[in-house]
């Protein structure tokens, strides 16, 4: 717990709504404690703006503990900011120095239209999930949970993929604005488990088709997504997805 506070200069993207033009505005953030989270710094700044008669900055957030995937800001050009493996809400101001200038922007991609300021619409991810991001189990018919043993290594790999919080930083980081890391994480999570295998081929095809339909770009192996991902989801899952797709294609005629 430190006593000293910092003063910062912020450049923040302001945009009234989806159709309005936007621009960067300059604000001063005063008396910022290193113990604050980045979002608490914005809270304090907003309170200062309100007192000055300026409309507060709109940004998405909810859990503030790095799990809901709601917070979404590009800080100094990096989705979720400079620290590895954290979301904006977990980023702390001790990462910055007194007098720093910080640039804050929303996720930018065609598939995620801006709603206001730093807030975007990630409905495209929901629609990819609706395409086949599930197993077709109807409640009531499940066998005993221990009926299918799953080797630990296999379970662990599926769990690594299942850690994805659907934040969209991978899209924001990608030069092509591809949503492939998100899509691959879901395909891998389910296709790697015995419960998801029966529909594996249909799933991978349907989800990739939905991904392409939403206007996300293609994956051309820049690996920026992996670097930005707060949950450490690996691009190896994209390779896995591609293998699953190749396996699935010849079967296409049959199902």
């Amino acid at each position, binding site marked *: 717990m430190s006593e000293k506070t910092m003063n910062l200069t912020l450049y923040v993207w302001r945009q009234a709504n989806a159709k309005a033009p936007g621009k960067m505005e300059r604000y001063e953030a005063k008396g910022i404690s290193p*113990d604050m989270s980045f979002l608490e710094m914005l809270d304090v700044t907003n*309170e200062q703006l309100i007192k000055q008669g300026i409309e507060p900055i709109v940004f998405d957030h909810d859990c503030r503990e790095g799990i809901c995937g*709601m917070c979404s800001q590009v800080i100094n050009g990096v989705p979720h900011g400079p620290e590895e493996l954290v979301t904006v809400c977990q980023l702390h101001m001790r990462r910055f120095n007194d007098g720093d200038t910080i640039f804050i922007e929303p996720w930018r991609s065609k598939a995620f239209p801006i709603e206001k300021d730093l807030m975007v619409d990630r409905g495209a991810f929901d629609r990819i999930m609706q395409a086949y991001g599930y197993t077709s189990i109807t409640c009531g018919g499940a066998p005993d949970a221990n009926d299918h043993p799953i080797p*630990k290594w296999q379970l662990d790999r599926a769990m690594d993929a299942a850690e994805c919080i659907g934040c969209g930083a991978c899209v924001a980081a990608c030069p092509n604005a591809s949503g492939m890391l998100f899509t691959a994480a879901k395909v891998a*999570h389910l296709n790697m488990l015995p419960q*998801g295998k029966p529909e594996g081929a249909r799933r991978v095809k349907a989800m990739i088709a939905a991904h392409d339909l939403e206007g996300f770009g293609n994956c051309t192996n820049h690996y920026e997504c992996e670097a930005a991902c707060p949950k450490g989801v690996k691009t190896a899952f994209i390779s896995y997805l591609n293998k699953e797709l190749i396996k699935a294609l010849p079967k296409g005629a049959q199902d």
Partner: protein
Amino acid sequence: MKLVNPANKRKYKILMVGTGLGGGAGAATLGELGYNVECFCYQDSARRAHSIAAQGGINAAKAYPNDGDSIRRLFYDTIKGGDFRAREADVWRLSQVSNNIIDQCVAQGVPFARDYAGYLVNRSFGGAQVSRTFYARGQTGQQLLIGAYQSLSRQVKAGKVKIHNRREMLDLVVVDGHAKGITCRNLITGEIESHWGDAVVLATGGYVNVFYLSTNAMGSSVTANWKAAKKGAFFANPCYTQIHPTCIPVTGDHQSKLTLMSESLRNDGRVWVPKKAGDKRPANEIPEDERDYYLETKYPSFGNLVPRDVASRNAKLQADAGKGVGASGYAVNLDFRDAIKRDGEKAIRERYGNLFQMYEKIVDEDAYKVPMRIYPAPHYCMGGLWVDYELQSNVPGLFVLGEANFSVHGANRLGASALMQGLSDGYFVIPYTIGPYLASTTPGAVTTDHDAFKESKAQVEANIEKLRNIKGNKTPFEFHRELGKIMWDNVGMARSEESLKKALTEIPKLREEFWQNLKCVGNDKEVNQQLENAGRVADFLEFAEVLAFDALNRKESCGGHFRVESQTEEGEALRDDENYAYVAAWEYKGEGKAPELHKEPLKFENIHLAQRSYK
């Protein structure tokens, strides 16, 4: 029980407010059965409901470890953990379906932890002497919620469920005494919308943000429940709030929320404070014989795994006695040194890696090397809207699921039992219990053409205008923080007649100031987070009074409700079964009027009422 014919189900429309474990599971399952469901949440996606934040795990009576667990034992532990203030029948049903929940989740692809042979493993949680908790790393809630959200997504594709995200319910529409719809604000366009349904289900989560700082999400509020209460739904046991013992301590005024460190940490972490008051040496420099492992000495059989209310109160006692650690003195140590010595750092990393990582991000300290510092924080509410065994409120057609209802946890919830309850309500209870009500109604008989919808809409719009036109000097944040302080100081971990009466004079004063001095900037026909907050704070300011009122009325201590006037010689909660073995259901009587108390007596036919002991 009356059933709805499968062919007729598609004629009915059900509104589900909330997409957490209760609402998500409920909406998906009702869709699978053939009903038309419309679902609402305030986040940008159904997947982000606050259930996502649950870390530790979910209980079930599978008895896989062969340690003597059974449905009966889970039932008993839950009733006892709740300090004998829950309904037996509801808890029995919960224990029964607990096993089906695990089966259902595994079939969805929920990656619960397994051993090398591929079988599911369990851990222990507070208030139980068996291992019955299933978990997925430190993110059980996210994995369960994604499972429900996957099922929900499947129903969206099937055309049975429609999701309206970024909507906030701001009123319940009641027609001839029956719940027939809701009024909500589109948080993107600001438009006030009417939605009709043959029944309305609320699964809107908990209200502990009434304390301002809590482990809940920033958007968690009492709004949906409170609006329903103002339309006649009884609010049951609002004073039963849970203060979680293992949270990261507060650092300053800027703090916007408190982060929970899962209680599962108490499996391996040992709680201690220095024996000497005011000992400010760094933890690692305090020798073994100068440490007080107060939970282990005071409660030898449960030790660090006593229920939450007991652990929290004891932490407060230590801090009040000047033995608290950290800069503020409002913290105790949670030490993993001995567990690391015993099992190795790798094993501990495997069990709690992401929790230790989260701690480091926030506090900037390595808990593998120095003890964590923890302190209690508001976490969960056992109270909620009153429901019967069918989960129907006293307003016909209004059902309530998950944390939003009051049903199974009595005066204290055991760890890993809320996830179980949410999924039980959603997957296995509401799909069946909503049938008899629907069977007694004509589908589509009331739609948004009814005048009640227009009135409700006009009222919501007028309320928004009122908030925006005060044009005072204090922001919603500032009012919320002040309310939180009143609640934490007077209606928190220890409550007395004096403190409660103080709260009951201070809350109305603050509310009055709110309506005269609120500064709510921005327009209403666009995204306006200030307006959203202002509305939530306005509701908390009304609801807080009922909470304090209930606490004042209940002159006993039980579970999370601790009245200093009612304790044993050892300082444990002392119940008064003769006078208070009832559910307190409060009826709203209008602004500025005292709510009316309805009592539902609690009868225990299978369990003998006993003074809780964890010694």
